[in-house]
């Protein structure tokens, strides 16, 4: 009953986000996020239909949908990284570098090695999802840490997007770790409740954050003319590098 209510609420809120963003004409600003949300909602509907009319196919369908979303979430992180650093030309690609770098590094040393160990498939799947959720959590913390280092403004939309996603990932990490440790008999009922609840919490935070589109900068209004310099940025960066190098070479 609680799970059904959670699924219903997340569908309503997810649909509300889509409608609000379409109304405000800002779907193109978050293209991958909207694709992710549409896929999430559409597969949720198909999920219910498969469960009702072809229950023997349900586990296969569920895991295909789940793993597609797990992979798509890495791409969603790329978009979040782009949004954080996009207004700043010198670090525009920093979000991509952090996301791709941590994904690659963690895949090599943390996510993939346990897959070659001989153990039951269910345990391997739980472990894989747990590790990928933790990796996404680390990416989010790294992105926010770097944003804080450069004192860049996140804006309400991106901050909410990150917070909702982080909450979902953090709960997923703990939920899958507990399921792996305590097994289906002991933890199964809690596991199947916490999963949908975490998704609902995530969608709820997204709804609040994306209710009104608020761009971080209104360039024409907010960029003071005294900060606009005629010298191209590559030249200024080069001068900083040259001056520092010359100084310490002496």
């Amino acid at each position, binding site marked *: 009953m609680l799970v059904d209510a959670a699924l219903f609420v997340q569908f309503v809120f997810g649909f509300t986000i889509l409608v609000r963003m379409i109304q405000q004409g800002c779907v193109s600003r978050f293209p991958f996020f909207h694709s992710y949300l549409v896929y999430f909602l559409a597969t949720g509907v198909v999920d219910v239909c498969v469960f009702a009319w072809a229950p023997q196919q349900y586990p296969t369908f569920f895991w295909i949908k789940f793993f597609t979303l797990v992979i798509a979430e890495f791409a969603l992180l790329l978009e979040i990284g782009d949004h954080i650093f996009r207004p700043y030309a010198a670090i525009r690609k920093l979000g991509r570098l952090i996301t791709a770098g941590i994904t690659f590094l963690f895949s090599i040393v943390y996510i993939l090695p346990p897959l070659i160990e001989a153990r039951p498939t269910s345990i391997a799947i739980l472990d894989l999802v747990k590790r990928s959720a933790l990796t996404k959590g680390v990416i989010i*913390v790294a992105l926010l840490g770097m944003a804080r280092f450069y004192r860049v403004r996140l804006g309400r939309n991106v901050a909410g997007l990150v917070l909702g996603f982080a909450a979902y990932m953090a709960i997923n990490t703990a939920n899958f770790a507990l399921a792996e440790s305590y097994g289906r008999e002991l933890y199964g009922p809690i596991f199947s409740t916490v999963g949908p609840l975490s998704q609902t919490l995530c969608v709820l935070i997204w709804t609040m954050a994306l209710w009104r589109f608020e761009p971080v900068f209104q360039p024409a209004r907010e960029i003071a003319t005294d900060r606009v310099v005629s010298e191209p940025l*590559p030249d200024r960066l080069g001068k900083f590098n040259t001056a520092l190098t010359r100084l310490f070479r002496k």
Partner: protein
Amino acid sequence: MSPAFLYSIIGLLIIVVVALLSRPRHEGAASEDKISQEHVAGLWEGLGLSLAERILDPTDYYWLRDELGFPSLAESLRHKRQHLALKWLKAVRSSFNEMVRTPEPISQGRTPSGTEGSWQLLRLTLRFHLFLSYAFFVVRFFGPYHRLIPSLRWTQWPGSAQPQSEPYGAPNAKHSL
């Protein structure tokens, strides 16, 4: 400690850290920015660089220690210079970050940098931070006069095509004291 408990703690920590990091910065931080901007203004002008050269120049240290024979005074000078050098490096970092977080004025008809250009800018930015971190490390642990900073003569930075024959300001041991 069981792995499940450990992962639960990590999950909780992620939520707390993300909530803290995604909070909007308060007004005090904005005024700190302004103060920092005032302090770092002119840091890369001739006078600022001349000051930095003087801080990192060991001439007067050797003069005190070897020619006048005051090793303890020379050590004290070295210690003070180390603090000054670290402060100068922090100011350099603030100045650089201030430049980095200047939003690109897209509205004024200037096209945003292309993908390749963006990666090049990021490379320069990271290169600067790497070198600055190395300088912090050397100055903090080996002092301001240590020569561990490698020569990077082979690098060609954009905007540095003109030959720079004159130093920013020749340090003068007599004037320093």
